[in-house]
């Protein structure tokens, strides 16, 4: 599904190499987790895949279901089935959450040559999905992420994911800023979306999110490379011993 090969990325503004040869393949139906210390390049990887400006790919490739992601605009990547749940969801005053959701859903449908969703079906769908995530009518009406708590913002990300039904979901530090209850709610939302034809890449600092979203594969990233890959137990090892042992082992 998602195939990343030898990906090298540097910052556009300064000559600083962030990713130094990332290889990663996520298969349909699988949940991969990336863990790693601060500054290892985890968030950069998610931004580069989603198409954020400010990065230059110097080598390597990234493909999603046969599409060359790196040649596509962010909106084209989204229409092709990529979704990034932001670590810091952006507040947009003056644009209603509902309007935003509907514009996004229909823009993607249009880009794929599908019929747009009519207002009634959309409303029904969004209400059902919002209820599962304990998102109330007021949150749907408010401007996008304005005045939302940290937990509300993350739940709103999952709501967007649920409505957009992407093929490949990347979650960037979705657990940051969440208390235990909020984390469970978010994890339940993600788990509900797990399906045989959908892949997940869960980026996190800590193992605790992975108690709720149990991964099939865990990668450890450090200094712009994936240095170790294993099963769910690798996350437990990190939780127990920190990254130091693994870093030492690889060096």
């Amino acid at each position, binding site marked *: 599904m998602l195939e990343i090969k030898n990906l090298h990325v540097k910052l556009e503004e300064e000559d600083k190499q962030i990713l130094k040869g990332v290889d990663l393949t996520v298969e349909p139906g699988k949940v991969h987790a990336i863990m790693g210390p601060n500054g290892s390049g985890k968030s950069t990887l998610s931004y580069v895949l989603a*198409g*954020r400006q400010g990065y230059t790919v110097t080598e390597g490739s990234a493909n999603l279901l046969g599409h060359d992601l790196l040649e596509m*605009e*962010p*909106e084209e990547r989204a229409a092709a089935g990529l979704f990034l749940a932001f670590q810091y969801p*952006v507040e*947009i005053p*003056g644009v209603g959450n509902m309007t935003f959701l509907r514009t996004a859903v229909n*823009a993607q449908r249009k880009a794929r040559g599908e019929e747009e969703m009519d207002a009634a079906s959309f409303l029904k769908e969004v209400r059902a999905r919002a209820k599962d995530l304990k998102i109330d009518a007021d949150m749907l009406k408010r401007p996008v992420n304005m005045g939302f708590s940290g937990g509300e913002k993350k739940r709103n990300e999952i709501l*967007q994911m649920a409505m957009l039904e992407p093929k490949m979901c990347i979650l960037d530090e979705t657990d940051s800023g969440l208390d235990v209850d909020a984390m469970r709610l978010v994890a339940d939302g993600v788990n509900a979306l797990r399906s045989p034809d959908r892949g997940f890449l869960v980026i996190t600092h800590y193992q605790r999110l992975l108690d709720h979203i149990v991964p099939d594969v865990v990668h450890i990233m450090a200094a712009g490379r994936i240095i170790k890959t294993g099963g769910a137990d690798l996350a437990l090892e990190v939780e127990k011993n920190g990254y130091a042992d693994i870093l030492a082992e690889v060096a």
Partner: protein
Amino acid sequence: MGLARAKLDQTELRLGCMAMPAAAGWTRTAREAALTRVTQMGLPGRRDEYWRFTNPADLVGPEPVPAALFGTSKRPAYDGIDRVRLVFVDGVFDAVASDDPALAGVEITRLAVAQRQDIHWASELYGVLEARGQTPVARPLAALNTAFATDGVLIRATGKAAKPVNLVYLHKSETSDAFLHHCIKVESGADLTVLENGPAAARFNKVMEVEVADGGAFHHVRSQGRDHERRAATHIFARLGTGSTFKSFTMTANGALTRNECVIEMTGDNGVAHVAGACVGDGAFHHDDTVFVTHDAQHCESRQVFKKVLRNGATGVFQGKILVKHGAQKTDGYQISQALLLDGDSQFLVKPELEIYADDVACSHGSTSGAIDEDALFYLRSRGVPRSEATDLLVLSFLAEAIEEIEDPVIRDEILQRLAGWLARHRG
């Protein structure tokens, strides 16, 4: 001290082309007084402080700069709203194209007709508010209008108007030079909505004097648009009584030069005055909002909310003042002016002012100019919204605070649709 030679010459040249209507009737006294004001003040020049950001040359020249007509098949503004249309073509009332004024449930008289009749309330308004508005800052183009206005309407509401009155300004001659003067009296407890739209003329000079009596409410929504080459100088002079409400919103799209002045005097306690504007300009577009709100009573609230979206060398100007007089305690004054510059070629020139002589007031003002927020743009695009649509959404979100000043949801939506349509046609 006399006027500078250049100003005197300019003023004489302009006045030489003007003639007072022969049948001025009771307006003659007001017109002659206004003419005296013009000759004393002189017409505005580039060196005047109040015209520092806007070159008045094309507004004061003896002849208008010809303005090409702009063909459009779009449906007229406010089309879906039940209203009484009064149509002016190049500044001349067109009775055939207009609706029956009686349907509005208010008194409506054409100025050209009214000046031959004895209309007591109007004689206390015509040129009166304009004259009051000449201090502390001179507004000679408004006095010029009072002296030479050829048409306009007098509207008096004594209760809640049955329908909004829609003043429609069509532009059919490339060299028209129109002077319209309206007087509006909203009597105690009455409620009136006036809608305006259209390019009006190659050069348009309009004055609207509005008196809102105690407990009255006046709503004004204006859509200035379409013709790219038109030039306009408009003035609103409003005087507000106790517990009255005045709300005015202007949308401007296109136009080589627009100067909208709004002068509001709050003379009774607990009054509310909101004046707002949203303008969008692409290329040869110069738009100036000049606002002066005087608080001369207690517990009054005033808001000025102006937003400008500019691209391809367009210029936006805002000069806004809140003057709080001695004794105008508990004044709540707010002023915000912001520009969204869609490229590096456009500019926003601002002069916000507060002058406060009372010691128990809350007044704030702010002004910003900036570009589209790249983080927000990426967020929208990452959800599949194409760049152009995402930009439009962010522009509308920027304009939202001004648009929300329109109270009526149907009219608000109408304005929103017009702005969205304009944005879709002017993508960078």
